[in-house]
């Protein structure tokens, strides 16, 4: 009897120890889940209607997301800190949409390697909050947001090596695979067209194809865009055209030139800046349908972007030396953020800075000691 009693006491003690441990573990696990799913929400910011630049400053182990007025981009406000695997900064969607940005990032603690699964986050600039949406994204493939900011698409690589384009409804957080391809070099989400279908490119040994896929439908080829690697894709604000650069041989050099595809029943390709020789960079749409295009510098002077508006080609404020690569127009198009390079072109790019070109021929450098990553614009 005494033995049984002692046994009961022992078992009670063991059970109590185990329960206590389990409670501690559950508490810790709950804490981890809560903290990792919703990053440090902050009170809503008082953001003015003035054009405001949103960008991240790279840090070795964490990036800081900042906002700053276009007139004074060095007057910054920190809105979010994004920890990441050492050396690997966040990779954002090309533009902010309705105050939202999405980015992929390698979380701290995973192998600091481009092959590791990245997390996909949604940033709401108005509330300065970030929400994790997925943990299976490809780091190098930037996600894209629809024009209304209600949907995004990102890329993931399956265990088989095939790549999938995944649609995320930001209201319901539901995810659906739109398209999977295991035979091409890779898929690249570009944006959404005016019907809400995802536009994406596909690299094959034959070159670059542009395709579209609507939710619930099979992907369809729009056209073969280039026999080479076409890059710097961007979708027009109304979703009825896309711009990109593709390489061609010009005076015994390979240069990239801008092309525009008008989407529709009979897609057509135009070269709106064909009269300009030399390397071109990153055609970027303004809200009114104009395009800013970067160009390499000449031997003697710096070259700013050119604005193509119909048949009109207007140069923007040029640097004394170096060249600019457009990143994004402010919402109503008064300011253009660019990457400014001190060198002469792709092969000798020199140092890079983030810079805002404003009205009245102003060029303001965003001061920093580390890399700046453009996220987009808010405000008017």
């Amino acid at each position, binding site marked *: 009897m005494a033995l049984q009693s002692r*046994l009961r006491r022992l078992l009670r003690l*063991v059970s109590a120890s185990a329960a206590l*441990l389990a409670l501690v573990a559950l508490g810790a696990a709950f804490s981890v889940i809560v903290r990792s799913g919703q990053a440090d929400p902050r009170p809503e910011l008082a953001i003015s209607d003035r054009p405001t630049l949103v960008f991240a400053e790279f840090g070795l182990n964490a990036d800081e997301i900042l906002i700053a007025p276009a007139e004074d981009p060095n007057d910054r406000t920190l809105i979010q800190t994004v920890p990441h695997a050492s050396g690997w900064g966040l*990779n954002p969607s090309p533009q902010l949409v309705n105050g939202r940005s999405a980015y992929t990032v390698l979380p701290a603690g995973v192998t600091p390697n481009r092959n590791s699964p990245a997390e996909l986050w949604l940033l709401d600039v108005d509330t300065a909050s970030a929400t994790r949406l997925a943990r299976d994204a490809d780091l*190098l493939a930037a996600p894209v947001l629809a024009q209304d900011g209600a949907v995004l698409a990102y890329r993931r690589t399956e265990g088989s090596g095939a790549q999938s384009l995944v649609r995320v409804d930001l209201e319901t957080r539901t995810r659906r695979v739109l398209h999977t391809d295991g035979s091409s070099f*890779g898929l*690249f989400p570009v944006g959404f067209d005016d019907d809400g279908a995802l536009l994406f490119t596909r690299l094959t040994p034959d070159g670059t194809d542009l395709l579209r896929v609507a939710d619930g439908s099979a992907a369809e080829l729009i056209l073969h865009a280039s026999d080479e690697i076409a890059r710097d*894709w961007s979708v027009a604000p109304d979703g009825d055209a896309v711009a990109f650069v593709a390489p061609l041989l010009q005076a015994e050099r390979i240069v990239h030139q801008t092309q525009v595809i008008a989407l529709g029943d009979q897609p057509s390709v135009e070269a709106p800046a064909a009269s300009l020789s030399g390397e071109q960079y990153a055609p970027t749409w303004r809200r009114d349908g104009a395009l800013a295009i970067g160009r390499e510098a000449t031997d003697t002077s710096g070259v700013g972007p050119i604005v193509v508006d119909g048949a009109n080609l207007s140069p923007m404020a040029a640097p004394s030396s170096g060249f600019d690569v457009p990143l994004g127009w402010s919402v109503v198009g008064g300011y253009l953020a660019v990457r400014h390079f001190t060198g002469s072109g792709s092969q000798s790019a020199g140092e890079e800075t983030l810079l805002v070109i404003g009205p009245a021929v102003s060029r303001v450098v965003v001061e920093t*000691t*580390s890399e700046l990553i453009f996220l987009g614009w808010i405000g008017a």
Partner: protein
Amino acid sequence: MHNSLPRSRVIASAFVVALGLAAILLGARAAPHEAHACAFDPLRPSTYEADRLRERYLFVLDAAATDQLYPESSYFGLPAVEVGPRGNRVSGPAAVPVEVLRSIGWVESTLTMGSRSTKFESIGPALVSFDCGHGIMQVTSGMTVPLGASGLPSSNQIAVATSDTHNVARGARILAAKWNDAPGLRPVAGRDTGGAPTLIENWYYATWSYNGFTGPGSKQSNHPLDPNLGWPRSEYRCNGTQSRTRYPYQELVYGCMANPAERDGQDLWPAVQATLPDFSQPQFFNAMRLGSFSFPYREMDIPTPQPAHRTVAPTVSAADRAALIGSPRLGIDSTSVAIQANGTPDQVTATIRVANPGTGVLSWSATASDGFLIVDPPAGSAVGSGIVCTAAGCPDTEITVTINPTLLPASRASGTITINSPNAPGTATIRVQVFADFEVAAPGTSRSP
């Protein structure tokens, strides 16, 4: 025969069970994000971390680049590096450019053998990434599963994980093997210079391959014209101010060659402004075309990017080499230990100190005879005379022996711990006696005889 169970014994028994449960819970939480198993999982070896200015490691890199560490070894020695144009490759000297090798080491690990928690000039946890990259060169090949007898790590794996000289030598051999993959498996860089391995620029594809010869659009793409990588790109400055996300691996390495890391105001190595291929030139652009990225990549052969730079082969004397490798000897402080499983906290573990009465860095591994004995770390380093080790605990390593109570065959059991070294002669055996006088049994505990 006891009529009553002492409270301390009950508490001790519960403590042992709780420890087991805690180990299970913690083990589950500590599981890596990726489903990898590495050579030493679930434990981590320890290693010696040298000086903050990386003087020892730079010296090791010099010796490895010129095959002066383990030239006789088929695993750690360099192979003959092939030279000549496609179709006429012949064996050349066993050497790799030290400029490329040390820059790879910096990109991989910032030239550290230990994890971030391991201080310089001390012994601590080894650097093991979740994809099983080990040490300075983040050697992954051959480190993903234990390859020794009885499911244990092999002596080569132990050396790679715990010995800086072996780790760097293995990384150099892997780099040389990437070079030798051309022309059968990889393209040739330097088709106009006879594929000379003495030109740093000709190592473009071998460097790319060290991280994976991946094509455009792949998740791990290192293709320089991949649309996912920023274009144009300023040079990688190698100082922690730029994200690696926009750069192919080989440009990270070239960037670190040109922009040496700095400590105390001093560059850690001489800057070399190696030239990257100019993709505005058709001979380089065409090599990177989508149609060219097709096995065996013959269309990707390129001339040497100009201006080219010749490697400066380091000089390592026989005496310097001997000092690096040393003459380690295995020593232990006891041949028998005891564990009182239900004793005081001091009694529930045993410790064994592994020393190196010789010179250089001793690598060792500890193997238990029975499943109920747990040795941690399972492998490590101990430093001998001539090696600076200033932190507490130096120059020896302490092995902690604990028991897994669920595997105890009886309340009194014994086993042995065997300590071997891949770079020192002899074997040490330590007898471990375990006392676990539980009078009652509960699930997960042993029974009294």
